[in-house]
């Protein structure tokens, strides 16, 4: 059976992105947490970046897997 490694990588990035985005949203109003990063909500920004990247990789991986399975049939 062919397994596209992009699927598990995409899952990992999506998971981390979700956790980071949720944490960023929850601590958005807390100025203490973001005094280090000059007031920017870095958790939210990078969480969204990772989320988008993860979903992109996951989609590409699923597409690759579908293609392989179609060739097999």
């Amino acid at each position, binding site marked *: 059976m062919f397994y596209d490694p992009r699927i598990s990588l995409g899952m990992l990035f999506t998971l981390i992105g979700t956790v980071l985005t949720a944490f960023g949203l929850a601590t958005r109003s807390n100025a203490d947490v973001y005094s280090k990063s000059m007031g920017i909500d*870095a958790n939210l920004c990078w969480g969204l970046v990772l989320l988008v990247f993860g979903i992109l990789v996951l989609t590409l991986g699923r597409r690759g897997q579908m293609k392989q399975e179609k060739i097999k049939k």
Partner: protein
Amino acid sequence: MATPNMLLQFLPAGLLGLGLTALLACLMGGVAAGVTSFSTVFTCDIFQAFLAKNAADKRLLAVARWAAVGGMMLSFAAACAAMRFDSPLDAILLVFAVVNAPLFAALLLGAFWRRATGHGAFAGLIAGAAAALLHHGLSLPRGEQPGIQGGWITVLHHPSSDLALGLGTAMLAFLVSLLVAAAVSLFTNAAQAEELNGLVFSLTARPPAIWAWWKRPEAMAAAILLAAIAASLIFI
């Protein structure tokens, strides 16, 4: 130490954990690759090839495991030695100058000159590494103590810095290795053309270039070179 300090300075809680985890994972991956390749090379290319030719698999496995332990010990020692340099980059440069510069010369000669022989390459490697060690032992960067940073034989000249010493050592090692390998190759028997098929550039069949220009290695190499020059000009 720049990366961890930057992470601690600027990243908020949350992203900081992710950054440190990624950094540690990256370091662990590098160490794991180094340990595995050390133990494989020691077991297959040294132990099995010279010390115990008919060893059983069980013994080889034990040797590989202990070789990994020994490799870790060696790298501890190397790290302690590297701490005496002003920057780890200087230590890496020294290792590259002694080991990689002669290797590069032998590889280039073997790939592009069909008259090159194995004996010539080996002599070139030894001579290049010896010349590098000699140069390193005879010169000392300004304002340093004799020892691992150079001058452990006697001090004949003072390069302006560790970087200058390392680059000079590398160039000398490369030139000596190239010359010795070429000279010894001319005095040993040449290999037959059939044996070299696919190994030497002039004897390798090259398929016609059918790729688009942006898929060719030449275009990529030129792009990387231009990018490196541009980056040097920007950050000079």
